[in-house]
């Protein structure tokens, strides 16, 4: 395909979205007024694990404002259960009802839903619902989950081990025997939650006359969500509309159809009235979706020089009580892409996922977040145990540019990435060479500095071929349409779900270059399943590559038709030498561009209102639809470097500098890319330093407020120095590689490496996150 000169793609345009957000005129779910709407409140289990003996609702039903109270038995009549049974080897099929009927599985599990005339009254009445429970022993951690004769979280399974996958290529056992040393490392990541500042919520509006359900909800994947709602309500997809207006953050939490949401939809249909629900922060912390909580071990067979010969990986993940996703879905990707930029042939992994009596897990910004910490931490361990420079160990093992495309031991192919370039840039920017002197000088004063390095190879965009090969049902394609209206206005859409990524701006830039108009002339129409095409939505870092390319292809097709019509209108035989630039047709004469009098608006008027003037055989109108299925996997890369100071007396950590050199291919809008990088790093650091969803030994959640679940504030985080080093991908016509999750991966890894460097005089290793002052202080104390 002929690629136009990029004039708008890559420009630092402030976002179109900002004006409404800055002035208080955004339209988040709760801002949408629904006349006559009732309010839902859920009664939740105070027990981590218990049989439901009975639910007494009579007292609550007579409370002020109460319209109805529904339990799991009611919902089972009106909705179908969720069956999670993709044909993946080693993955046990599981099923859950819309609300629990026989037993609750975690502290916060919803057991009944009160519908009342206001949120206040619904909450009052919820306190009057009497549930008779018979408490059961709970599975509070992975260790308990995997005990022989462990209590079962899900009785339909033979054990709590819901998924196990093993893989081996080459002969890692033999490499261990040949090795100069086998270096063993451990990595333990705490349980976290996404914490969008806007909690979950929806307004379900059942139209009895049309037999149609409209769901206003902040959601990342409107069309797949619609499919889920329709299937579980026994409706067709033409009976459900999802309207996802402005969304106050998602980070992976707003993908799944949650049980509360389905309950609210069913209640609206039963009552033939609109019903809305907004969870409070305690519900969001305890019962929305959790993430992470992995225990990882590596065994690296290495030569005396630190060259990696073979690697074994074990991952054990605590998935919580319910599977809203296939249980292998998150941890498996870590195993698939673990080696990142490093060369390796002989590799084996075992990935185990277990159920416990906790809130269910889901993908959180960088579901594979732990990857870079594990491989870079392994590199540091090799350096430490062999007395080598950690940078030299990385250089020794890293793939050379001339060796690309390189096939990882799992068969994943990395191409068009620049890990050596970004690593060297980060090393230079942070003054790695000068650091050791500064570190030594500081130590003499009793100050403990540390420097970490972390290279990231980010799997951004999963094509359908990847899913097929991994045995995961679903598609990686994205869809777009573009319409030039009779007056020349340009409307366009993709099937993504915006949660702050600036699509309305960045994709307007893509359309601008693909079609030949100004970005200000383009309006993106998204977030409504009746308007947008069926796309797979926003998850991973696929928006730019999958969505951006789909809309670019639609814009190119539009450009072709517009110029064909223009040629006819100007009296030329062909469109050769014609260009559309900022909405005006230009003609190339002897290499010079000459403006004509013809505008896009005139061409559009002809296309719609004077079809007999169109070239022979051409259909009227300017309406284009495209789908795009990206290559199996698109990778981008970055190198993070950070310098910390650790207070050995208190365990407090201060980040002195944070540098990231990044290559994410063609940048659609540098503001957006840099903002995504900042946000991803912040989420990574927040998780690595502070965030910890805690359960006590009996399975009680003890993190029900923001005073207990700590997230990074502006005083916890440093300023970020971003070094753009973008080189285009050859995998798609715009050259996009995608980004927005790698920052999480890099931050988690680099901070751990820096802390361990600072801890080196004490001879202790931090292999656990969060790296809280308590934990670091306990490590230092154990060393003395």
């Amino acid at each position, binding site marked *: 395909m002929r690629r136009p000169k990029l004039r708008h793609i890559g420009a630092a345009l402030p976002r179109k979205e900002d004006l409404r957000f800055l002035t208080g005129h955004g339209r988040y779910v709760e801002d949408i007024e629904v006349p006559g709407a009732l309010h839902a409140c859920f009664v939740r289990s105070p027990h981590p694990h218990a049989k439901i003996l009975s639910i007494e609702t009579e007292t609550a039903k007579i409370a002020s404002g109460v319209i109805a109270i529904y339990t799991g038995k009611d919902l089972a009549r009106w909705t179908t259960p969720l069956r999670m049974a993709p044909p993946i080897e080693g993955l046990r099929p599981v099923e859950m009802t819309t609300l629990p009927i026989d037993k609750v599985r975690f502290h916060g599990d919803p057991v009944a839903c009160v519908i009342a005339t206001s949120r206040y009254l619904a909450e009052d009445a919820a306190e009057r619902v009497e549930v008779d429970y018979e408490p059961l022993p709970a599975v509070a951690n992975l260790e308990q989950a995997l005990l022989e004769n462990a209590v079962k979280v899900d009785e339909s399974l033979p054990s709590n081990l819901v998924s196990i996958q093993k893989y081996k290529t080459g002969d890692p056992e033999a490499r261990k025997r040949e090795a100069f040393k086998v270096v063993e490392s451990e990595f333990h990541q705490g349980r976290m939650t996404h914490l969008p500042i806007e909690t979950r919520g929806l307004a379900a509006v059942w139209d009895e006359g049309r037999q149609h359900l409209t769901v206003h909800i902040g959601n990342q994947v409107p069309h797949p969500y619609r499919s889920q709602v329709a299937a579980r309500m026994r409706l067709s997809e033409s009976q459900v509309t999802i309207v996802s207006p402005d969304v*106050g953050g998602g980070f992976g939490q707003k993908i799944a159809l949650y049980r509360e949401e389905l309950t609210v939809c069913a209640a609206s249909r039963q009552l033939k009235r609109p019903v809305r629900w907004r969870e409070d922060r305690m519900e969001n912390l305890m019962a929305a979706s959790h993430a992470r909580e992995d225990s990882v071990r590596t065994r690296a067979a290495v030569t005396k020089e630190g060259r990696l010969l073979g690697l074994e990986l074990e991952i054990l993940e605590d998935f919580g009580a319910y599977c809203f996703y296939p249980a292998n879905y998150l941890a498996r990707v870590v195993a698939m892409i673990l080696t990142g930029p490093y060369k390796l042939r002989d590799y084996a992994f075992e990935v185990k996922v277990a159920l416990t009596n906790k809130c269910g897990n889901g993908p959180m910004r960088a579901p594979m977040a732990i990857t870079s910490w594990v491989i870079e931490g392994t590199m540091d361990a090799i350096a430490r145990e062999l007395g080598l420079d950690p940078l030299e160990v990385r250089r020794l093992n890293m793939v050379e540019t001339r060796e690309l495309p390189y096939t990882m031991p799992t068969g994943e192919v990395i191409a068009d990435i620049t890990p050596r370039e970004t690593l060297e840039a980060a090393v230079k920017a942070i003054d790695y060479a000068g650091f050791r002197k500064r570190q030594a000088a500081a130590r003499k004063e009793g100050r403990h500095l540390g420097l970490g390095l972390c290279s990231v190879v980010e799997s951004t965009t999963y094509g359908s071929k990847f899913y097929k090969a991994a045995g995961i049902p679903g598609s990686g394609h994205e869809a777009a349409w573009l319409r030039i209206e009779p007056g020349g206005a340009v409307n366009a859409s993709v099937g993504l779900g915006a949660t*702050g990524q600036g699509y309305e701006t960045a994709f307007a830039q893509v359309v601008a270059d693909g079609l030949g108009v100004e970005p200000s002339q383009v309006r993106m129409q998204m977030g409504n399943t009746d308007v947008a095409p069926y796309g797979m939505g926003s998850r991973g870092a696929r928006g730019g590559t999958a969505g951006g390319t789909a809309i670019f292809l639609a814009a190119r097709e539009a450009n072709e038709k517009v110029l064909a019509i223009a040629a006819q209108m100007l009296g030329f035989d062909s469109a050769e030498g014609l260009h559309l630039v900022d909405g005006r047709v230009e003609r190339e004469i002897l290499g010079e561009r000459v403006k004509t009098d013809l505008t896009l608006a005139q061409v559009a008027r002809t296309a719609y209102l004077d079809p007999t003037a169109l070239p022979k055989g051409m259909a009227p109108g300017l309406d284009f639809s495209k789908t795009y299925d990206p290559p199996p996997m698109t990778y981008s890369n970055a190198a993070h470097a950070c310098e910390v100071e650790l207070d050995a007396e208190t365990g407090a950590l201060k980040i002195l500098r944070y540098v990231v050199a990044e290559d994410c291919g063609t940048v659609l809008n540098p503001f957006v890319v840099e*903002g995504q990088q900042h946000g991803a790093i912040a989420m990574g650091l927040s998780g690595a330093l502070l965030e910890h969803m805690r359960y006590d030994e009996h399975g009680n959640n003890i993190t029900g407020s923001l005073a207990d679940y700590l997230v990074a504030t502006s005083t916890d985080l440093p300023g970020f120095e971003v070094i753009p080093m973008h080189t285009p991908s050859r995998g798609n016509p715009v050259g996009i590689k995608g980004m927005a999750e790698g920052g999480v991966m890099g931050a988690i890894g680099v901070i751990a490496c820096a802390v361990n460097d600072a801890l080196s005089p004490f001879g202790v290793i931090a292999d656990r996150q969060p790296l809280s002052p308590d934990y670091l202080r306990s490590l230092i104390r154990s060393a003395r």
Partner: protein
Amino acid sequence: MLDFELTVNGQRYPVRAEPRKLLSDVLREDCRLTGTHVGCEHGVCGACTVLVDGKPSRACLIYAVQMQGHEVTTIEAVAKDGKLSPLQQALHEVHGLQCGFCTAGIVMTFEAYLKENPRPSEAEVREVLSGNLCRCTGYHNIVKAIIRVADEGSDATA
């Protein structure tokens, strides 16, 4: 139910609400000013920050009925005649917001703060900003916008 009157953005609103109804809910539901967002309802996230008699206050920690006789200012009153305030403009120009949900609280906090402290250091800005949670931006560009508007303000008066 109680009948009372609130003054919000210089305008009077007659309100009929339970005494326990939060200011944040009354602003959003009864005054139909939905720019004030509710993020945690326990005073930590700062998304619902409004000005009460010019001072930043958490609308989720105040009962609306307590606001009789006080002046409440919300995000809707910051831009004048469609023109962004210098702080709003700076946030726009340096990409100091992403999903936008926490933005109103941050704008209200610093509209008030910058009046009292026109030339804050970065450390001071970060200290004050630590009362507002933002999950998208990592705070970097918010800090940058506030410093920029402070610098511009001081240049203009110099």
